[in-house]
């Protein structure tokens, strides 16, 4: 039976301590009884340190968790041997201790119940009760509809164990918003060109680059640690930075050139740059001759894409377009047009990243020092288990045959589509497990997400914190934080193959459990115990580590271990070495045969995107260096640094609307959606007059988050219009427009209700 899920507002118990502002001059007088050693810094020598790698964002920097003699986690310091961080964590990694200490954490398993009046609430449950119930629902789903009707949304390391469980169960529907809402277009665009994708951490050789071009990529505000460190090294080395952004970003403030482009016109600029580089004969001729396919077609394609043509579209002066193109060419091949990371903007994002790939290709930067290096990773064997069952259907059956042929990952929005019944298509998903991702903030078009949820037989949410999505769950499982658990080994690719260990520095607080334990417990209840033949994760890790010449004991001591590269090919095209690319032609495809076969433009074209109507401004959003998505806004250490977001408004626009700095307003988008909460105005010269900007991840609707609830506004809520990328299903989110409401709108809901 389908029940209309109510958003459960778990009431905040108690009043808590009064907030003390930074500027507060509250003098309490003396306290001679204060525990002095609690206030004084603990000496490193008096503490014990345990290896970990960070889980506050996806960069996963390795570090050491310091624990004092009383067992308190005092600080987390980067591991000097780790190439992800070189001993220096970012503010979120340093503040990771706030995640462990957060008093608002999920504390026990919760089960949704309905009282006699029809009011729904969460009941605290034991682990056995919650796991039995999940297993019962999963088994019923398997018996009645088939295991393929289950989907897993996962983000972060712990998702590996749950993915293994879901694959063993028999479902292929394992998805992360990091593809269709983030880096997907770049991976598809680069693969179509070079036969390989950009990977994470990105294979960008920023530190040795002589010219770094950032297109909307705000390194320094997005705190991808290795990228920041390398950008800083590039600045030290005198590299030229060219930043293209409608907003004067932090990166722009460190750049030689800032191109304040009209939003949604980047592709025109890229084509004009390609035009200048080809027609001024500035491209890397030997490289193009040896490796590239379709140069003549490209040359003809950009013949009329002159800087003058682009000027009318982008508002960037032709002379600046020429000058910056020449700067890039002068640095070639040590030039890097950064592929970006969150690139789902306007729906033609694969084509835009293709243009970025092409520009890199004609400047000869792929496989070259200062361009893109060739990463390598350690291959850790899997613990023996039976083969996974072969799924009979998948999320793709919810689309006409042939759709998304170039997509190698599962679209998170595709999971939603495959859940909402449609008489014409096979939309069969009926059960979701959501691990470590707050879908209400990570997916656009909340209405659609809520509709999909309303059709579910069950929704399980596993997280450390109550998030907006938690409130829609039938069963909530509290995971312990990364500081309290072992996890799978980190094996991400880098210049040198490297592994990192995460081990607990403290016992799990409250009644929380690690993901591996949850996965194994569910497997036992579902008759899948053969897939989890190890007793506990220490046994698994030690077995894996011994297969690669290490051991759990060694890794507990060192935390990070580097391995020699198998091949000496970090810059594998540096001297025009022979190389066969993994494309149809074996070449770098400037002209994409793969896209041509699928009936898409084989060479990127500029298309005009909708512009804001009068009185509306394009909603741009981005990151703040002290927060990750919507997950850190309640972390006390990071909340101290940034408590709410603000909406950036150009002074001319502010004058027009008579807005004042610091004033709270509501934002209304083109579909009439009004932000649940007001947002503070920041009047600044750092933004164009045709767009506004806000940091993503604020405006939480769950009261259980005592610090984050109702602070700032949610951009996700205002992104109701999505521009789908026809090539890979990415959800373009930068085509939404907002206007300002100075009065609190009537009937404005302060909580989302389904």
């Amino acid at each position, binding site marked *: 039976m389908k029940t209309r899920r109510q958003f459960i507002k778990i009431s905040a118990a108690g009043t808590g301590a009064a907030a003390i502002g930074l500027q507060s001059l509250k003098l309490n007088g003396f306290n001679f009884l204060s525990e002095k050693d609690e206030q004084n810094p603990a000496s490193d020598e008096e503490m014990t340190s345990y290896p970990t790698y960070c889980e506050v964002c996806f960069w996963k920097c390795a570090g050491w968790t310091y624990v004092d003699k009383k067992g308190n986690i005092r600080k987390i310091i980067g591991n000097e041997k780790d190439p992800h961080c070189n001993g220096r964590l970012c*503010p979120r990694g*340093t503040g990771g201790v706030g995640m462990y200490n957060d008093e608002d954490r999920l504390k026990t398993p919760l089960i949704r119940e309905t009282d006699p009046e029809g009011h729904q609430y969460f009941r605290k449950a034991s682990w056995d009760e919650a796991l039995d119930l999940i297993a019962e629902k999963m088994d019923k789903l398997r018996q009645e509809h088939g295991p393929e009707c289950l989907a897993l949304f996962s983000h972060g390391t712990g998702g590996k164990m749950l993915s293994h469980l879901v694959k063993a169960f028999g479902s292929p529907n394992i998805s992360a918003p990091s593809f269709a809402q983030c880096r997907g277009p770049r991976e598809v665009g680069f693969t179509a060109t070079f036969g390989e994708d950009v990977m994470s951490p990105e294979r960008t050789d920023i530190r040795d680059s002589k010219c770094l071009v950032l297109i909307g990529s705000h390194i*320094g505000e997005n705190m991808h640690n290795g990228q*920041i460190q390398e*950008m800083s090294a590039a600045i030290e080395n005198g590299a030229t930075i060219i930043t293209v952004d409608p907003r004067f970003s932090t990166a722009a403030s460190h750049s030689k050139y*800032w191109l304040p482009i009209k939003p949604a016109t980047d592709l025109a600029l890229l084509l004009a740059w390609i035009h200048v580089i080809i027609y001024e004969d500035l491209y890397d001729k030997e490289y193009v001759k040896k490796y590239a396919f379709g140069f003549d077609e490209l040359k003809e394609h950009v013949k009329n894409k002159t800087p003058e043509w682009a000027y009318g579209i982008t508002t960037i002066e032709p002379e600046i377009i020429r000058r910056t193109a020449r700067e890039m060419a002068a640095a070639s091949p040590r030039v890097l047009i950064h592929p970006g990371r969150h690139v789902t903007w306007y729906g033609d994002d694969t084509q835009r990243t293709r243009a970025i790939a092409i520009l890199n290709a004609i400047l000869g930067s792929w496989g070259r020092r200062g361009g893109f290096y060739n990463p390598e990773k350690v291959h850790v064997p899997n613990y023996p288990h039976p083969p996974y069952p072969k799924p009979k259907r998948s999320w793709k059956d919810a689309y006409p045959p042939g759709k998304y042929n170039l997509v190698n990952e599962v679209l998170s929005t595709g999971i939603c589509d495959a859940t909402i019944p449609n008489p014409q298509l096979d939309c069969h998903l009926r059960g979701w497990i959501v691990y470590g991702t707050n879908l209400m903030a990570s997916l656009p078009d909340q209405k659609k997400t809520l509709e999909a949820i309303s059709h579910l037989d069950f929704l399980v949410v596993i997280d450390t914190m109550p998030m907006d999505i938690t409130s829609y769950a039938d069963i909530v499982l509290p995971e312990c934080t990364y500081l309290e658990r072992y996890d799978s080994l980190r094996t991400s690719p880098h210049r040198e193959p490297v592994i990192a260990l995460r081990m607990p520095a403290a016992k799990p607080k409250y009644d929380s459990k690690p993901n591996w334990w949850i996965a194994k417990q569910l497997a036992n209840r579902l008759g899948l115990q053969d897939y989890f033949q190890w007793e506990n994760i220490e046994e698994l890790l030690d077995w894996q580590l011994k297969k690669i010449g290490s051991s759990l004991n060694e890794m507990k001591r060192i935390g990070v271990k580097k391995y020699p590269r198998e091949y000496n090919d970090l810059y594998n095209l540096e001297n025009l070495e022979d190389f066969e690319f993994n494309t149809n032609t074996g070449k770098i495809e400037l002209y994409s045969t793969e896209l041509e076969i699928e009936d898409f433009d084989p060479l990127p074209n500029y298309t005009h995107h909708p512009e804001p109507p009068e009185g509306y401004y394009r909603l741009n959003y981005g990151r703040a260096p002290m927060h990750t998505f919507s997950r850190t806004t309640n972390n006390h250490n*990071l909340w*101290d640094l940034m408590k709410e977001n603000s909406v950036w408004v*150009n002074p001319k626009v502010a004058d027009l609307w008579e807005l004042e700095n610091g004033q709270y307003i509501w934002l209304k988008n083109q579909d009439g959606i009004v932000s649940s909460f007001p947002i503070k105005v920041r009047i600044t010269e*750092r933004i164009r007059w045709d767009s506004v900007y806000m940091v993503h991840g604020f405006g939480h609707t769950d009261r259980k988050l005592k610090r984050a609830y109702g602070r700032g506004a949610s951009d996700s809520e205002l992104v109701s219009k999505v521009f789908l990328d026809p090539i890979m299903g990415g959800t373009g989110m930068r085509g939404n427009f907002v206007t300002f409401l100075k009065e609190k709108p009537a009937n404005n809901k302060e909580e989302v209700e389904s």
Partner: protein
Amino acid sequence: MRYAMAIDTAKCVGCGDCVVACQTENNVPHGYCRDWIVENVSGSYPNVQVELRSERCNHCDNAPCVRCCPTGASHIVEGGIVLVTHDECIGCGACIESCPYDARYPHPEGYVDKCTFCKHRVDKGQNPACVDVCPTHCLHFGDLDDPNSDVSKALKNRSWKVLAPEAGTKPQLYFLT
């Protein structure tokens, strides 16, 4: 010996890592900070400049906070580090008022607190916590009397400025421009 810090504004991205590292290193209570970030925007669109600065106590040679302290709790130790002896501080707040850099805050336990240049680390030959955590390597610390120290080397080849020079405090935080 003269401890000082140089902050490279060409590299700082204002991420606030120095603030969090200081909090966890020195147990600074939530809601307070010993170091902070200043964002200075000048010009008008599209000719804009932004300077980001990691700021803290300037450990002045001529420190008004030390001069005005009625109990002697505020004092200067070897290397020029300005400290507050918590037990001797009566929390009167005169030093807070006298500081042109707004570097001091009233600790909830009743005394005035501020940056110590992480003296407990410096005494062991380590850098202050903020310096060692900074992902952009924009903070340089050391002894100005030692020409090979990080801070001496950083100041040697770059132009720099100090904050509020008109206050005559002889501050020891140098901002590389």
